[in-house]
């Protein structure tokens, strides 16, 4: 199966016929000999293949860094793909110069992609590009010469230069300034017009050619990457109606194709889950969060998925839709997320059904939400154990509670018996102690590379405690809580 794609590669208009599932990394390196984009792991973990994907939005161009090793070529249709070659000028840019002058390139294999990500940082933050932003945009890059200290210094140099920019609110304003200052090539200013000219009906619009669905691709390309270019696949991102977040009455409806990054950046979500940005930073790299979708994460059914654990505690519901033409008359179906998982990677879903939306009620002012995770690395690591809670009290009586825990069972676990027990009980030490014992009977951790079963039990206790310690610091002194398991 092939599809025709038209896109901008740097300043060049491209018109090609490719298998839709072909990786953009392979397209760049093997078919177009653009070798500045490097192949490090082909699993989205090292960041050496990072490119920028630019889309024309109502507010002008919007670019995001993504790993090209997890990006299907069929999806770049109508978009602007920027590689390091597309950032080069006749002189070194301030990003490139800072890296050279601070000795932040050693073997240099990770460097071109780092140039791409730091340039993205300037496009996104402009004059406000700060130390935290530097760490943030570099967090998805591995450097085995471990030149991070020099890279952070290079980041400081870039910030100094960026101070001459005028603070502005949007990427497109920043981009114009960067062009003016000779930091970005001038062709960037012509990109919106070019894309408009190239705009055509997206391929595959209106029907789904195959039930081999690819959303963000961040799991499926790691699991089945080699076979996908040969298969007939449906690139769900070509159906943008499944994106976006809206409020309907007391509920939030999340389109299944909403990416992690879009989710965390959305004002409605930030209002509902105030610390969502912190939780996200513990999650995947920026490049992966820019691709990974909420729906895809739910369907991947990892027992340890951070997002799913959070959504379980939010008591989310799914709206599923049947895509098979023979069953088109079937109505859409709603199911509680906690009832969706039937066993390890087993779902209550037919192969042709799609998760269309995720729905959860907006937390009331008296409700609190908290998420905890422990893993080896502080950031970007898959948890050993994670847990989330949604709780409301009335006169110190637990009015409503939802608790979830990951990494302790074959499925992302909703602790239903624990919730049942605590519901209507007073929030006190002995009730929590008892609830923790119930939780211990609900979980069934196994020993694996993320830790032994005993360790996970120990962690699950500590995370359980941490929720109450964090949410009700006045009621539970740490000492009391520690004594619970002491």
């Amino acid at each position, binding site marked *: 199966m092939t599809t025709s794609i038209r896109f901008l590669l740097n300043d060049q208009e491209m018109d090609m016929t490719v298998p839709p599932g*072909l990786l953009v990394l392979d397209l760049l*390196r*093997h078919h177009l000999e653009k*070798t500045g*984009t*490097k*192949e*490090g*792991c*082909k*699993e989205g973990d*090292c960041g*050496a293949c990072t490119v920028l994907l630019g889309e024309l939005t109502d507010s002008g161009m919007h670019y995001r860094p993504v790993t090209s090793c997890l990006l299907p070529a069929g999806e770049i249709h109508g978009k602007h793909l920027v*590689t390091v070659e597309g950032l*080069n000028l006749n002189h070194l840019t301030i*990003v*490139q110069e800072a*890296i*050279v002058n601070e*000795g932040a*390139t*050693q*073997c*240099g*294999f*990770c460097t*071109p992609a780092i140039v791409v990500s730091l340039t993205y940082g300037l496009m996104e933050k402009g004059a406000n590009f700060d130390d935290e932003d530097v*760490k943030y945009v*570099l*967090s998805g890059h*591995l450097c*085995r*010469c*471990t*030149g*991070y200290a*020099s890279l*952070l210094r290079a980041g400081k140099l870039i910030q100094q230069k960026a101070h001459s920019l005028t603070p502005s609110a949007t990427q497109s304003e920043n981009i114009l300034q960067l062009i003016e200052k000779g930091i970005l090539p001038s062709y960037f200013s012509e990109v919106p017009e070019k894309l408009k000219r190239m705009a055509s009906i997206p391929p595959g619009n209106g029907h789904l050619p195959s039930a081999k669905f690819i959303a963000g691709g961040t799991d499926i390309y*790691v699991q089945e990457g*080699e*076979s996908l*270019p040969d298969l007939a696949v449906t690139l769900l991102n070509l159906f943008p109606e499944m994106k976006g977040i809206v409020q309907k009455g007391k509920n939030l409806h999340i389109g299944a194709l909403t990416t992690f990054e879009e989710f965390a950046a959305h004002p409605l979500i930030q209002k509902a889950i105030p610390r969502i940005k912190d939780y996200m*930073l513990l999650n995947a790299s920026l490049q992966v969060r820019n691709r990974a979708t909420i729906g895809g994460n739910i369907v991947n059914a990892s027992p340890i998925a951070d997002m799913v654990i959070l959504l379980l505690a939010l008591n989310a519901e799914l709206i599923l839709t049947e895509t098979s033409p023979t069953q088109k008359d079937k109505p859409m179906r709603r199911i509680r997320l906690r009832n969706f998982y039937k066993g390890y990677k087993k779902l209550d879903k037919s192969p042709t059904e799609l998760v269309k939306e995720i729905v959860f009620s907006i937390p009331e002012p008296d409700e609190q939400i908290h998420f905890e995770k*422990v*893993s*080896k*690395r*502080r*950031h970007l690591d898959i948890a050993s154990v994670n847990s989330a809670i949604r709780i409301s009290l009335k006169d110190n009586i637990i009015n409503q509670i939802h608790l979830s825990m990951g990494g302790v069972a074959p499925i992302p676990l909703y602790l239903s018996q624990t919730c049942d027990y605590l519901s209507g009980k007073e929030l006190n030490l002995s009730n929590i102690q008892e609830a923790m014992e119930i939780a211990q009977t609900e979980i069934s951790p196994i020993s*694996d*590379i993320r*830790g*032994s079963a005993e*360790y996970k039990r*120990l*962690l699950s206790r*500590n995370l359980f405690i*941490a929720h109450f310690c964090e949410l009700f610091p006045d009621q539970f002194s*740490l000492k009391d809580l*520690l004594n619970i398991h002491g």
Partner: protein
Amino acid sequence: MSKWKPLEKMKILGKKYPRIDGAEKVTGRARYTYDQFKEGMLYGAILGSRYPAAKIVKIDDSMVWSLPGVKAVLTDVHPTGRVRYVGEEIAAVAATTPEILGEALRLFRVEYEKLPFTLYLEEAMKDEAPRVFPRRSNVNKPRIREEGNVEQGFAQAEVVLEDTFRTQVQIQTPLESHGSMVYWDGDELIIYDSTQAVHGVREGIAKMLDMPLHKVRVICHHMGGGFGSKLQPGIYTVIAARLAKQANAPVRLMLDRQLEFLTTGNRPDSLSRIKMGAKRDGTITAFFAKTYGTAGIGNGAGVRLPIVYSIPNVRHEHHDVYTNAGAARPFRAPGCPQASFAMEQMMDEMAEKLGMDPLQFRLKNDSNPTRQKEWMIGAERFGWHRRKVTPASDPGPIKRGMGLGASIWWPGGRGTKASMKIYSDGSVEVFCGTQDLGTGTRTHIAAVAAEELGLELKQIKVHIGDSNYPRSGASGGSTTSPSVAPAIKNTAEKARQELGKILAEHWNVSPEAIIFSDGYVIASGEAKQRLSWKEACGLLETDVLEVHGEWSEGLSSSGVAGCQFAEVEVDTDTGKIRVLRIVAVADCGLILDRLTTESQVNGGIIQGISYALFEERLFDPQTGAMVNPNFETYKIVGTMETPEIEVILFDEPERGVIGIGEPPTIPTSGAIANAVYNAIGVRIKSLPMTPDKVLQALANQKA
């Protein structure tokens, strides 16, 4: 040959300047082996054994050939058909596109006769463990080192301590995997290889393919890291050459990330049982260690104990142990981080027992005069006096602590040859068969040549990474700079003398009167003539001045000291360790470039943090497969875990050039472990220091 100029007279060396290939790297124009293309090139892949121990009964490749695009297949890759680890090479394929390689590998039908296997050090040491090699015990005969008399040493001791430490298997995982692009030009073989040794690979491959040396050429312009794993010729290169011959087409064969983890080397694990005795005054009198380590099916799992400190009476017995895993290869300071993790903790335990400050105890037992100074500089900068005397004395669940450890390294380098061409327009080319791993060798060559000729860096065109250039050794063991820099100085000096003779004749002065400085050639003394470099070279007319030089005595040496101080924060609820700050003092004689030197030290420290906290090879005990052969689950430190690092370079220009690559990664894990103890009052005696071990240790302490 003359000595190095004094540091204050140097225009380039000893200063801070960016690398000359920086622009190529930041623009993506630097081409690595992974980026090499040639018309009609095929893509190669290797099929690795699925089992950790098996006889290959039969390999059926008929289905592979049926896949359109397959152009060459090898089923006789393994010499004996008896595989000993998962991933060991058994077959290979070359095809027209990389996309079909995965499918092609799946179509091999391999019949195995599975055999029992053993994976872990202590398991493999048991009598009943399956033997990795049928006629040899898994436990190798001991290597014994003895100095003084340990019995007497322990008899003199007033305090004796015993303890056991374990370290894990760490994998080099350079970001560019191992691999080659090869093609045949008639009966000559051209190899682009991601290697630390272009000459070594030429010699090795010529031998493996039974070819004359002059018909093999190895090229490596840029390479994406090696850390010791790319010092040797690769089986993948031989396979690529054979595939290329069969298909009559160029072949590029780069290992995928999984085979990279399984087959291209590692740092062996270690088990160290140590006994140490000291007098009440803090003098260590005796040291006894029995150590074990596994280098998979290979050897070289030594633990360099006792590291750093001067002890009069020492006995050390070491056994290499075989397991069904890929062979170890050198990894940045082989044998040393393992030893340092154990030794630095032993030192702290003893200091505590003696009621001494850990720093004072070290000063008492460290005979290296450089490090004596470095300890004091580092302690001052770090604020060692603020260290809590009582461990775990912070209130609350998050506790801070401080620790320290010492660096050391031995080898120098020798043996490099080089040549230089000077043209009549003033352009200068240097040729040397070394290679730049990212350490800055290309830049250092330009710097030494420019310094000698009184030119600027950009006036020197450096050619390295080609076995057609004058021979240089492998870049490993911190030998490159001390081997290469003197050879370049020697070559440039010869060029200067040759050019000087021509000018002396031109001006009718003695050759000794000719000076090269700031882009000019000057006749000093009464004559007072001056020509720009370009004008001077113009006297060559149509001739090219070509000289050959080599390494010479007295410009480099060996032996590095150094020390590190670490501050950490430990969350006693979750067991997580966060490194807050490292202060490192590092020496390497005459510093060629402060910027690349600092980068090396920074990199060594951060790799040390990664070793201390995250990295570990893990097996599935049922199947013998590595369960984390990828960057998702084999964790490497990132920017978010990078602490504040301060590097203090200690100049000793009078000692000449010394390599700096290895030493900075040695003491980090031990310094962190000591800081963790200072924070929580419990010792973590096994690497990596993961949250589960910390929580377990805290729980054990309570119990």
